[in-house]
């Protein structure tokens, strides 16, 4: 699991039987008390934007409380947010659909100046910094030989012997290097790269990679036979960090090379409608070797655009 905290936003991604949404009440109390940020309107909170999503669970009955089903999660979110919408994306009745909750953008908080004629500037014409894109790949049925790279032999409960080395992190860094997960992006000179990876025992792996101080990609792997799973999520602007040598299709292919899943879904959010990466992924059809595309769905969500693709290995 991972948490990324920026000055103005946070991303919390949690695996297993975590209770992600149970932090909401305390979170908004904390930002009000510590930062004097008050987003309350008519008994609900209305920050700039909220996204909550997940692929359908493999073992939903083992989840706790509201997380056992999507309707309960949606109802819980609606207790906090007044303007949320819920989407079930993909084929219902199948075990691989994806669910999304998103609130309408609170434009009172975007700091956008009005022009002299009273009109607001078009988002697409704003500075590049206003663009935002997130690529996520959720993969199941990992190729066993590749999943085995995420199994370690160390035992839990060993005494802490060193103030400097930490075995789980050392092994995590080793896994990152061995699997080439540190080479997903062709980062050009001058783009900083920091990783924080951990190898769980007896198996499993999590990593946060921060590039250029402000972009991240994160990986989480549960390699067990029968329910193997890996996720890759990134807000790295691929064109920028690669100096134009790479696109998100190349990134996707590198991730697939590491895990070899039997099935994966890819979601891509972009704030701009004229996002080149969005357009390229949207055109992706039979270019993914060894995989057949089963679903392609495009949504326009307020000021965001969402592309959902699902593939199965041939």
């Amino acid at each position, binding site marked *: *699991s991972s*948490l*990324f*905290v*920026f*000055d*103005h*936003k*946070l991303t*919390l991604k*949690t*695996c*297993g039987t975590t*209770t*992600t*949404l*149970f*932090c909401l009440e*305390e*979170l908004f109390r904390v*930002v009000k008390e*510590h*930062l*004097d940020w008050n987003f309350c309107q008519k008994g609900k909170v209305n*920050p*700039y*934007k*909220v*996204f*909550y999503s*997940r*692929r*359908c669970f*493999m073992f939903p009955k*083992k989840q*706790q409380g509201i997380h056992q089903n999507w309707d309960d999660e949606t109802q819980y979110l609606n207790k906090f947010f007044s303007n949320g919408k819920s989407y079930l994306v993909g084929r219902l009745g199948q075990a691989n659909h994806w669910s999304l909750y998103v609130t309408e953008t609170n434009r009172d*908080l975007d*700091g956008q100046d009005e022009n002299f004629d009273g009109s607001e500037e078009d988002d697409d014409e704003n500075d590049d*910094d206003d663009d935002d894109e997130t690529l*996520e790949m959720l993969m199941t049925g990992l190729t066993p030989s590749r999943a085995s790279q995420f199994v370690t032999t160390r035992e*839990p*409960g060993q*005494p802490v012997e060193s103030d400097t*080395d*930490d075995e*789980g992190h050392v092994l995590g*860094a080793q896994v990152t290097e061995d699997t080439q997960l540190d080479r997903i992006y062709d980062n050009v000179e001058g783009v900083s790269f920091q*990783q*924080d990876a*951990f190898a769980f*025992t*007896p*198996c*499993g792996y999590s990593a*946060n990679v921060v590039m250029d*101080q*402000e972009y*991240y990609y994160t990986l989480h792997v549960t390699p067990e036979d029968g329910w*193997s799973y890996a*996720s890759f999520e990134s807000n790295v602007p691929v064109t920028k960090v690669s100096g134009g040598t790479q696109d998100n299709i190349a990134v996707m292919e590198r991730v697939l090379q590491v895990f070899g899943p039997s099935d994966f879904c890819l979601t891509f959010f972009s704030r701009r409608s004229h996002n080149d990466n969005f357009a390229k992924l949207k055109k992706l059809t039979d270019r993914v070797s060894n995989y057949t595309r089963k679903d392609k769905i495009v949504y326009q969500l307020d000021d965001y655009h969402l592309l959902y693709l699902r593939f199965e290995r041939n």
Partner: protein
Amino acid sequence: TVSLNAIPSPSYIDRELSANLDSTDAFEGPEKLLEIWFYKNSSCVPDNAKTLRSIDFSTWVRLLQLVKCQVLSMKQTEKMNAFLLSE
């Protein structure tokens, strides 16, 4: 083997937690992903010098307890704090 010294220093590591975590009973991969944008970007944050990154570490630890996560390690950069969590 990569030594931790060869890795750019994490800002924080919980060595006890790291040594004792056992993933034997982990079974569910698919994650829950929550993203909250309080403001559109950092320049829209009210000009009182406090941002989400002003919230102290112990408060994040307490918030994460509600989620059933513990902090394994954390890295701080100029623009973000990245926490690696248990589970």
